[in-house]
Structures are given as C-alpha cells and as structure tokens.
C-alpha cells in the first residue's frame, strides 16, 4: 500500500527523518508511534506530498510517488490532527462535505454524505454550520470527509486526542469498522493504549530513526524485558520475600497489601514454579496472574534504551 525506502528529510543540518523504511500492507491497521518531535508528522507530510524528501523514495500502491503523481493521493483519505478554525465559517456540515465530494469527484455525493453522516450520528446536525460543532463532532466530520471518496487507505494523525471517553469509543469503533471493510489504516499517535487496542502492526520511530516495526505481540515480547507475575496470598511473611528473590529467574519482588509483584527475567511462564514454591512454604495462592506487558512499557523500554545509546555516543565524542 505505502512503502518508504531510505526516506530521509534534513532541515539544514538537522536530520528529522533518517533512512526510514516503512511498509504498510493492504487491510491492516498500522500504528505509527513516537514521542513529539520523533519525525512522525514529517514522514506523513512527505507521504502526502506537502514536503519533499531530501533522499529516499515513496511508493504508493506499488507506484513510485512524485509530486506530479498527485492523482495517487486521491486514493488516500487524510484525517489531520487539527481542524480548520476560522475558515469556511459560512458552510454547513453538508456544504462542507459536498465541497470535498466535488473535489474528489465522489459519485452520488448527496447519498454518500447522507449515509456517512447517518453512520456517525451527525445526520440531524447536517444543516448546522460545522464551525459550531464540538471537538468530537468535528473529528467525526473529518473522518467522514476523508472517507467520502472511498479511499484505499486512511491516514489518521492523533485521531482521538481531545475527545471525551464516549467520543474515543465512537471513533475507535469507526476505525475498527472501516478496517473490517478491508480498508488499510495508518494511525500516527502517542496515545499508546488506543494504538494497542486497534493496531495489527506498529512502527516505533525515535529521533527520525525506525526503532521497531512488527506485529503487536512480537513487539511486546521482544521489547518488554521484565515481565511480572502478581500473586495474592492470605499473608506475607517477611522471609518469603527474601526466599522468592533468591529464585534464579526472579529480578525483584514488590509487595502491595497482600499482593506479591514478582519481576521475572526470562521468557518462560513461571506461574507454576512460583505457585509450587509458595505451597511448599505452607501458604495458599489466592490468585495468580501474569501481567500482560503494555505497549507503553515496550515504548518506554525502546526509547529509553536508545536514549542511553545516544548519550553514550555523545559521551564518547
């Protein structure tokens, strides 16, 4: 769908994007993660043709993309992170969508607009000026605008930022529904919990470099080094903590009320080992659970490691 090859963007001496190789496959929801200033928006700008790459290539739908091939962009729907404020103030939501439908040559535009407005619950507000819409309504309107030409891929920049929990759920459901229809979706975000819920694959970018690109499970398994087992017991003798800490696969043990939080330093499922050990000590485990690693932890691990790497390089110089 979208592929970048050694994509680089320099602003003077500053390298904003450094030899980036991304590959977004048909039908997948792809998360593009990175902290502020990582190069996400610069990369998207180059894909969308509003910024010219310093080096490297972009392939859209198998074709090498250049500024002269603007027609290829017709197959991409874009939901930017901000909404135009103070412009087109005279337009109703319907007129706004109709304007874009004309530009994108949408067939049966009226019917399509009505259908999409109905889908997201904005139909009854279609004749209201869109500038009076709330943030959540604007976000939904923006998604409808992007979906009007029935694009092959939807690029969304921070799609849930600023939304209330109800709005977040509505937008998330809409993304999932669109993906089920077979549409590829690229989500650029720093809202890791949301990315985790809806993305099949994730790319993590930091200081312009691609640190990881894989499916969610593998990213989590590879990057979260310290897994954790939580065990509730009826009482916790002080000696028990020291004894558990001596087990070779245990990094450290924390206690919260009657819960033991045991940090494991390998990839094996150690719940049985820990439970048997506790039994042998005459105690009964009331609940035992391996805590699932979160994308947030993976993200922190990967960026912190890189931070350390950069710092060491800096120190050597």
């Amino acid at each position, binding site marked *: 769908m979208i592929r970048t090859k050694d994509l680089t963007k320099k602003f003077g001496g500053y390298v904003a994007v450094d030899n980036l190789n991304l590959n977004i496959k048909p039908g997948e929801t792809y998360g593009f993660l990175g902290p502020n200033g990582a190069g996400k928006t610069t990369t998207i700008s180059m894909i*969308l043709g509003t910024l010219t790459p310093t080096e490297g290539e972009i392939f859209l739908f198998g074709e090498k993309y250049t500024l002269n091939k603007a027609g290829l*962009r017709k197959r*991409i729907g874009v939901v930017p992170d901000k909404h135009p*404020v103070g412009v087109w103030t005279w337009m109703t939501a319907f007129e706004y969508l109709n304007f874009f439908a004309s530009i994108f040559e949408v067939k049966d535009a009226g019917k399509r607009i009505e259908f999409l407005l109905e889908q997201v619950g904005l139909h009854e507000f279609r004749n209201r000026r869109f500038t009076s819409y709330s943030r959540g309504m604007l976000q939904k309107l923006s998604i409808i605008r992007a979906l009007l030409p029935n694009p092959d891929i939807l690029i969304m920049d921070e799609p849930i930022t600023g939304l209330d929990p109800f709005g977040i759920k509505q937008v998330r459901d809409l993304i999932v529904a669109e993906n089920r229809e077979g549409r590829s979706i690229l989500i650029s975000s720093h809202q890791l919990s949301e990315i985790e819920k809806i993305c099949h694959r994730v790319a993590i970018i930091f200081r312009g470099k691609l640190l990881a690109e894989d499916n969610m499970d593998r990213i989590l398994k590879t990057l979260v080094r310290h897994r954790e087992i939580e065990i509730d017991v009826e009482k916790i003798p002080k000696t028990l903590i020291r004894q558990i800490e001596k087990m070779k696969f245990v990094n450290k043990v924390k206690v919260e009320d009657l819960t033991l939080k045991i940090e494991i330093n390998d990839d094996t499922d150690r719940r049985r080992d820990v439970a048997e050990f506790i039994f042998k000590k005459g105690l009964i485990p009331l609940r035992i659970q391996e805590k699932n690693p979160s994308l947030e932890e993976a993200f922190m691990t990967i960026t912190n490691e890189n931070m350390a790497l950069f710092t060491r390089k800096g120190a050597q110089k």
Partner: protein
Amino acid sequence: MNEKVRVIGIIARTRIKETLLNPALYVLITGALVFTYYSLVDFINAIDSDGLNLAKTPILELVSGLMTSFFGRTASENLFAHGPFLFTFIVIFFPFILYLSISTAFKLGNEKSTGACQLVIFGPVNITPYYLSFLIRDIFFTLGYIFLVCILFTAGSLVTNMVVDPTFFLSAVSSFFMAIALLSYGILASSLASNGFTSLSIYLSSVAVFFVLYIGSLMTISEYTINPATVIGLVLQVFSPFFYWQASLTAVEHGNWLVFLLDVFALVLITSVLMVATHFLSRIRSIKV
C-alpha cells in the same frame, strides 16, 4: 476536462460564494454608489460661467487639494479635465482592490496556517490550483465591479448630461490589469508566509513601497541626481503595477495606443511572472500538515 482546471473551478466557485456572503462587499459597493452620487452632484455644482470652479464645493476642493499635495498640480488637473468620472472611478476603485487583495493575502495565509488549504491539497491536486482559484475569484470580482461602475457612470451620464469620455473606458481596461497584478502580489506574499498576518504584512509592505515610488514619480523634481536610492527606486519601479498603470493613463491622454498596449502587456507579464514565481516557491517551501 483537465483535473487541475476542474478543481480550480470548484474552489473558485466556493470562493466567489464566500465573497458574495461577506457584508464587506456590500458596504464597499454602497460606499461607491454614495460617493459617485455626491461626486457627480458636486461636480455639477462646481461648474459656473467661468468653467470648473472646485472652490465652490468644499468636498471637491478638499479632494483636489489632497491630490495636488500628493500627486502635484498637473496630475490633479488632468484628473478633473475629463469630467468627474475618471476621478470618481479612481477614488472608488482603489478601496475595492485593496479590500480584495487584503482578503486574498490574509485568507490564503490563514488557510495555510489553520490546515484548511492542506485538506484540499491532500486531494488530487497540488497547491498551485489552490492559489489560482483566488486569482480567478479576484478577476471575477474586479471585472464585475468595473462592469457595475461602467453601468453606474453611463446612467449618471444620461441623468446629468455629462459625457463619459471614451478614454475613461481605456483607463478602466488598464486599471483592471493593474488590479490583477496587485492581487497577484497578494498571492505571492501568501506563498512566502506561513500565516495570515505574515502574508498580509509582506503584501502591504510591498504595496507601500510601490505606492511611495509612485507618488515620488509624480512629484516634480527640478534637479535629478543619481544616487543609490534613486537607482533602487528605478529598479523597483519596473516591478510596480502603479508604474505601468500611470504610464498607460498618460498614453491614453496622448492618444499613444502602442505605448498603451505595451503598458497593458507589461501588467499582464508582471501577473504571469508573479504566478509562476508563486508556483515554484510553493514547490520549494513546505506546508505544515
């Protein structure tokens, strides 16, 4: 139909609708009507047995005084020599062009900074058609305004029995091309800026420079000395729409049609160069997503 032409048409139609919905347009037209009425009435009142006596009407005397102090006595007298129409036209035409060009420079810059422009160029076209749609809007309204003024003056002529000099229509033609060149500067300014206020500042600064040079060129200078300032002034004048407009008015005055056509051609050339420069600048300069 060519994709770019199609998109330019769609955006330009929206722009025209947007301008028609703006009350400022009607305020300017009303102001023009009122000024034309008083200008014609005052001009008639200023005519006595000795000819035109501007001292008889305070408003025309004031305007004439201002014109003389700004542009010199000859320019002021020439302006009134052909009746009230050319003078009235210039007074009501400039505010309208200033409004259109300020609106173009500010809106384009603003639409870039708020992300509105990006929503369109994420589509099937690059940014040049977006700029061109503003030029189309400006051409539409400038032509419409000149047409309206011509009808108004013809009606005024029939009512007052004052003849609209045929040279007025030629002046209107060169004024149209001068206006389009000025408006193109507004578009170029927006391609250099990343927001509305910067764009407007760049545009107004360039117009102010051209205006000062224009006034300077009309002043009578007894001794002409060459120094760096005059050289820079002369070079800048080459890019000034006012310079060719003034030259075209003088050519009309002297019946020199070839020079008139060359001046109009120069104005068209400036517009074309500015639009080409806008196109290349927008390719070089990035637009924030």
